[in-house]
């Protein structure tokens, strides 16, 4: 790797006057062994970091890292710029709509902050292997997808080699919703990981199908009906594209008709879009808070100039009691974490439920959230989503009761193609 001096070229340090000054004195909170000064600055500049996501959080993160003394930044994002991004993703302009987020964001920050190198990758995190992730000092995530978070988390956990301290890549993760957000620091295998904390981010309970089909009461029930039931029945063969205005308009009208039939008020186009695309409100200010909180942790970890967050900060900006509050705490590492623990997780089930019902329940269980799981026991394959032949072969099991497939307390291995790891569950019969 180039030495920081070479990256800098002839550029003077005058630009970094404030940063240099803060890194050249010692905080009362710094570790007693910490030595401030040039070595710290050199180390910071040579730290290669990865940013996952170049959206609302990612734009802020890139700006913040560039202005924190990091010089070698990589960014991954598979998305292109949409007009609804412009209210917060401040590195993009109207004329950028349709272009790659990672590329536009990288070019913008590089041109604004001379001497910083930003390498974009327009694609999926799953395209990259362990060798790729091994080159970074740390990883910062600004994602809205739980699945991608779980994937990078399990990848970083599995990369840790106890003999090689360098293989441990701190993961800093941010997320927002409306006026709220969270920032967390994860030391894979050492501290609580994303998977350990999964049940804190439980998915919203789905509306029962029978409510949608026969007794809708809310406008959302009518929209879900149009989305889940009517579309498949009435537009057989059309693949629903939630970005296609014609498709949304169709769903909206269909939902509106159904609502009229049941005298349910309140279906709107905007609500239809919100329900169907699962839109989460997002604003610039919350992204700014969370992204900068994450980069502040990256800065402290890379320089050791002050202690880092242990390990979770929850920010609530819409409290009607106090205006705002933060809740900072140490989330616990779980022995039965399917990713970083070594014990199987216990799940209690009704032995009379079918395998098919059990698989469906795995999507909603807070501690699992698996959408397309394949299951096997030590001795047999219970159900495989793929390949086709194996799927056909195991499909009859879906109708069978759990008690006929397993013994009480038996362990099953569960894998989901969206995630990089096998989960172990111990299934205990209830009732």
């Amino acid at each position, binding site marked *: 790797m180039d030495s920081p001096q070479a990256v800098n070229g002839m550029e003077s340090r005058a630009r970094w006057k*404030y940063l240099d000054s803060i890194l050249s004195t010692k905080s009362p909170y710094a570790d007693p062994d910490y030595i401030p000064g040039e070595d710290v600055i050199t180390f910071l500049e040579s730290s290669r970091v990865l940013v996952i996501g170049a959206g609302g959080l990612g734009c802020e993160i890139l700006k913040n890292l560039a202005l924190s003394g990091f010089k070698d930044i990589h960014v991954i994002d598979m998305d292109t710029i949409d007009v609804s991004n412009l209210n917060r993703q401040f590195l993009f302009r109207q004329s950028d709509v349709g272009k790659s987020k990672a590329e536009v964001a990288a070019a913008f920050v590089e041109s604004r902050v001379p001497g910083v190198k930003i390498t974009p990758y327009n694609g999926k995190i799953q395209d990259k292997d362990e060798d790729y992730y091994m080159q970074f000092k740390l990883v910062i995530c600004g994602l809205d997808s739980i699945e991608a978070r779980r994937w990078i988390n399990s990848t970083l956990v599995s990369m840790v080699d106890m003999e090689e301290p360098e293989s441990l890549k701190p993961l800093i993760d941010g997320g927002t919703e409306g006026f709220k957000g969270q920032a967390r620091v994860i030391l894979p295998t050492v501290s609580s990981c994303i998977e350990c904390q999964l049940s804190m981010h439980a998915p919203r309970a789905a509306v029962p199908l029978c409510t949608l089909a026969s007794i809708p009461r809310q406008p959302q029930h009518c929209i879900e009906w149009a989305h889940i039931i009517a579309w498949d029945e009435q537009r057989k063969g059309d693949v629903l594209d939630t970005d296609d205005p014609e498709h949304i308009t169709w769903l909206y009208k269909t939902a509106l008709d159904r609502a009229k039939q049941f005298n349910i008020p309140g279906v709107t186009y905007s609500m239809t879009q919100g329900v169907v695309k699962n839109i989460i409100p997002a604003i610039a200010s919350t992204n700014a808070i969370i992204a900068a909180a994450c980069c502040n942790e990256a800065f402290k970890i890379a320089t050791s100039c002050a202690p880092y967050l242990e390990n979770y900060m929850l920010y609530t900006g819409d409290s009607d009691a106090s205006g705002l509050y933060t809740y900072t705490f140490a989330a616990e590492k779980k022995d039965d974490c399917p990713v970083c623990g070594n014990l199987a997780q216990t799940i209690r089930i009704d032995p009379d439920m079918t395998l098919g019902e059990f698989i469906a329940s795995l999507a909603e269980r807070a501690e699992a959230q698996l959408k397309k799981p394949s299951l096997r026991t030590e001795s047999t394959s219970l159900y495989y989503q793929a390949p086709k032949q194996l799927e056909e072969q195991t499909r009859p099991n879906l109708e069978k009761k759990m008690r006929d497939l397993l013994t009480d307390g038996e362990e099953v291995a569960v894998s989901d193609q969206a995630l990089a790891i096998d989960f172990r569950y111990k299934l205990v019969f209830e009732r």
Partner: protein
Amino acid sequence: MTATATTPPPIHAPTAKEKKYDRQLRLWAASGQQALEESHVLLVIAGNGDVCSGSSVAGVETLKNLVLPSIGNFTIADSAKVTEADLGINFFLTSQSLGQSRAEECKQLLEELNPDVQGHAITTPLSDLLQDPSHLRPYNLIILCAPLPQEQRRIFCEHAQQYSVSLIHVQSAGFYSSFSIQLPSVFPIVDTHPDPDSIQDLRLLSPWPELLAEAKALDDLDKLEDHDHGHVPYALILLYYLEKWKQNNEGKAPDTFKDKTQFRDMVRAAARTDNAEGGEENFDEAAAAVLKTVAPFSIKSGCREMFEKDSCKVINKDSASFWIIAAAIKSFYETHGVLPLPGSLPDMKAKSADYIKLQNIYKSKARKDVAEVAQSVRSMEKKFSRKDVILDGEIEAFCKNAAHVKVLEGSLLPQLRIENGDVQTRKTMLKELQNTETLLPILLAFENGSRSQLDDMIANNGKIDFEALNNQFAEVERVGGRELHNISSVTGGMVAQEAIKIITRQYVPVDNTCIFDGIGGTTLVLKL
């Protein structure tokens, strides 16, 4: 949680503007957006350049977070020229900005973020601007980046008090930051966006005749067919069994915790279990709702405090429309012992038609209550010959949110009260300093020269953690007013959230001080 827009015409494809601002309109709706677009924010930076960046980055980052959601206008008052050190912390400057006006350069690069927003720059020294404070009239929110010379800070604050304009005082240095908000002396908020779980108001212990009739119409629950029995809405189940309970308890509703658990068991026992599911969802919902909904009506402190204010008790021809409605609601409360019914019904297991019927019973009662409040509003308008008629929509919104309305009372910026040696402020600080994890010393360390005042105040106080206090002072001193971009960016986000709350009059702003510690990752909110 998400604001409901008014029902659009049958086919209402979103406009270009609605598309661009979709993710925020779901929070503060068109009314909040309009308030943002009509506002003009002034950012004041004391350009004193070389060692200290004067919290300028926290200020500019705040503006970024306001320009993106489309504030109408912003003005930066800053007489400094751009230095190289600015380029290392401020994203809204380029190498070409060196030596130019910092206000002009930032203004230009911020404007690029959103063509809907107008920026302005004032580059003359603050002393010129303040020669005639009437120059401050166009702004409806003033943000001061600290440190500012004390006399100048005082002029801004006094102007803001005089004209009932909100002001935010921001400081960011090293890993610490703080902001304090000076609100107008009366700052009412109707749309406080309470937690959706806390807004249920079913009035099960004070049902009105139509609601009670609906429960009575069930006749004998035990005689219902299984399917019907499993679809009675839980609100009616509870009303039905409350009547039974009262028959056995001298007409009294369950009151103590013990009563309520017994009542809950009674409801639970009434569920039919001889079916495939081994129970009934609606009865589960009913049992789960007992503790929360079987309770006498009570008003929250925010509402009670509002009723106690003189502005609410004494209405005259100059009363603001807020207080006229508040007074009307107060008289409603005094007459009926309850607030106007909000009229929303949570989702519950039920057949569609039964649910809609029940929903309409709640809605029409709410409309009736609004009409009664409106009538007393109109009679006050007439009594005082007011020209401006209060809109029905305003009365309706107030009635709907009445239980959660808040009136905040702003007073002079705490930093000025500290400077004045205000006794009450000192008392509050002394109490706060005894909390082991307090961050208050950071704010005091930010205020130049307050250490000696502090030492006087806390001398020999055994309850104070002097080590923590000294460390916070030492850290502030160490960084000497130099900003870290990350901390200023966190702060700019927090201050922008507060600015949005103040401008839209939605959500509840911090009252009045917040301190952020980027080392521990914590905040302290306190009323100084």
